[in-house]
């Protein structure tokens, strides 16, 4: 990826597509617009696209079906745009292989942040087994990636926030590896830490409360002297 990243924006609503395309262009992206899944497909063949922004609800072929097509043909990142915030849509979307989703109306700034995170991850090649809903198991816990849910050994759902999810996901993908606060911020939020940034430490302590037997003496998420955290347990996938 060099120069301006090339985004393909597929949405049948002109009233959203046009201003969003202009906004993204101002943010330094090159944007190709398509008003339907069909024209999106041909644009995919015609240009070297770096990331697809895809509306789910469209007349004709819908966004989910196009996501499946894209995933079947490669690793191109997909962010779904949806008007429905219902859980099932999200899960289906992520199961189809979408990398992320935003609910309309969304903040364009947040969308840009997510686009940058995903592009950076794609560039680093950390995109993990795209499309498959990989589950991670560690110390009796199960992290389901499609649902973004954490389950205890007896099958009890232990609700976590999306920030906590991204944090534990980053940790289980790199068991044993020491991750600095900056790395974790970058991996989970796509931004750099400020001088007094406590966001990661807060989320770690919240996670510990939920998964450690004794949060004061953590055995799963260990603090490493010199600034960082490490998942001190084996992780199995599948």
């Amino acid at each position, binding site marked *: 990826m060099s120069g301006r990243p090339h985004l393909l924006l597929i949405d049948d609503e002109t009233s959203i597509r046009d201003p969003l395309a202009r906004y993204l262009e101002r943010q330094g992206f090159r944007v190709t617009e398509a008003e339907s899944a069909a024209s999106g497909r041909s644009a995919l063949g015609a240009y070297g696209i770096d990331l697809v922004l895809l509306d789910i609800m469209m007349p004709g072929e819908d966004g989910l079906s196009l996501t499946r097509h894209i995933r079947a043909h490669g690793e191109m990142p997909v962010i779904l745009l949806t008007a429905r915030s219902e859980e099932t849509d999200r899960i289906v979307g992520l199961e189809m292989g979408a990398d992320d989703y935003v609910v309309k109306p969304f903040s364009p700034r947040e969308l840009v942040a997510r686009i940058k995170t995903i592009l950076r991850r794609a560039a680093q090649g950390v995109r993990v087994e795209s499309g498959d809903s990989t589950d991670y198991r560690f110390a009796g816990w199960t992290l389901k990636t499609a649902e973004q849910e954490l389950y205890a050994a007896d099958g009890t759902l*232990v609700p976590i926030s999306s920030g906590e999810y991204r944090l534990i996901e980053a940790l289980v993908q790199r068991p044993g590896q020491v991750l600095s606060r900056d790395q974790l911020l970058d991996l989970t939020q796509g931004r750099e830490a400020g001088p007094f940034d406590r966001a990661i430490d807060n989320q770690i302590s919240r996670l510990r*409360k939920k998964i450690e037997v004794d949060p004061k003496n953590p055995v799963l998420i260990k603090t490493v002297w010199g600034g960082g955290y490490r998942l001190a347990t084996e992780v199995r996938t599948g």
Partner: protein
Amino acid sequence: MNVLQRLWPRTLVGQILLAAALALGLAQTVNFVLLLRSIETQAIGQASAFAGGRLIFVASDDRRAQRMQRRADRPPQRRGGEGVRRRNSTLFSSTPPAVAGESQPDAALRIMDAARQNDVQFQAVRVTLADRADVPPPMRRRDGPQAGLRDRLRPGAAPARRSLVVSAQLGSGQWVSTASALPQRGAPVIGWLIGQTLILYLAILLPLAFIAHRVTRPLRTLTGRANAFSAESVHAPLAEKGPEDIRNLIAAINAMEGRVTALIGEKDVMLGAIGHDLKTPLAALRVRIESVDDDEERERMAASIDEMVGILDDILVLARLGRSGEALRRTDLTALTETVVAEFVDRGGAATLADASGLVIADIRPVLIRRALRNLIGNALKYGGVARVHVARDRGSVCVTIDDDGPGIDQAAIETMFEPFVRAEASRNRATGGSGLGLTIARAIARQHGGAVTLVNRPGGGLTARLSLPG
């Protein structure tokens, strides 16, 4: 009155059976009276035939004796004159014996007829039904062989209490009288009649109960069905069974259920369309305001748009609550509450979660419960400044309590707080934002779980909101 009300059957089956039992009882009473009267008539007939026969015999005997005397040219021999012929327990007298009782002219006529057939002429016959105690002793001494005979045949039978006194005037003008005991009425007949009534009741009420039960079973099914009716669970139509009226009713209810389900479905489709159609222009607006250069102005616009979206979501959630489609899942309620509290803390809210004692796990719909908790904690922060949250297990239920330090709510107004679009501030101004649906949604979600949301003013000040769920 109270007892009557308590005994009055409330069910259709009960009322049908009661009506049938009352009608049967009435019919049996009429039957009983008629039967008693015919038994009485029959008994009087028998007794008068017996007594009449005896008088006829005495009279013809008397006539023969007179004829023989006349042939022998002997002066008529007065045999006792006024007195008793012991053998026949008959009493001769110049006037009929005065016995108080009920005169029986029909029986008297029958005796006259019988006498005529036996060539005996009575000038007059009187038949009186009297208490046996009133009958002159000479007649009572043996007032009919059946008394003694019956005692021997049926030792347990009650002694006769009534007698039929029959007096006949002979050709000579003399009266001859005799008495005949009547069998004690009633007793065996009543027993027989009660038996008959019981058999009738069994024969009629049992099949009736069966039929009524068969008729009302579909009614009970319908009642259960109507109670359980909800748009979220679609059942197959009820089978049309039972009598035709009931089948028609079931068909009508099936059709109505279909219409209601269709209406609710339409409502959901419409609300979904409204939600989608409103969110699209809002999304467009949200993108366009990024071109506003004034940061403060842009933030305000974004906040307004977010608020509109929030209200829209609230309305959609409330409208579709019944068919959210979310399944019950075993969930760590403490972790869920912790997550919601953290959301508010990250936005600068003064929310705290007390350390829970032990795991609090319940079968809930986590997405909905998260929304309910968000509404309750949000209210505490909005109106009470702080939210001290506590999760606990309490005898078969789990509960989350949220204490704030606000002014509380006027006790009389607490219940109205749960009504849609009601806000704590009287002016109903929208300064504090929100849809006014927060508590309504929280309570609806709790109730959907079989739980409750309550608001209580604490004695020391502040309000406590409590979400309790079965667990």
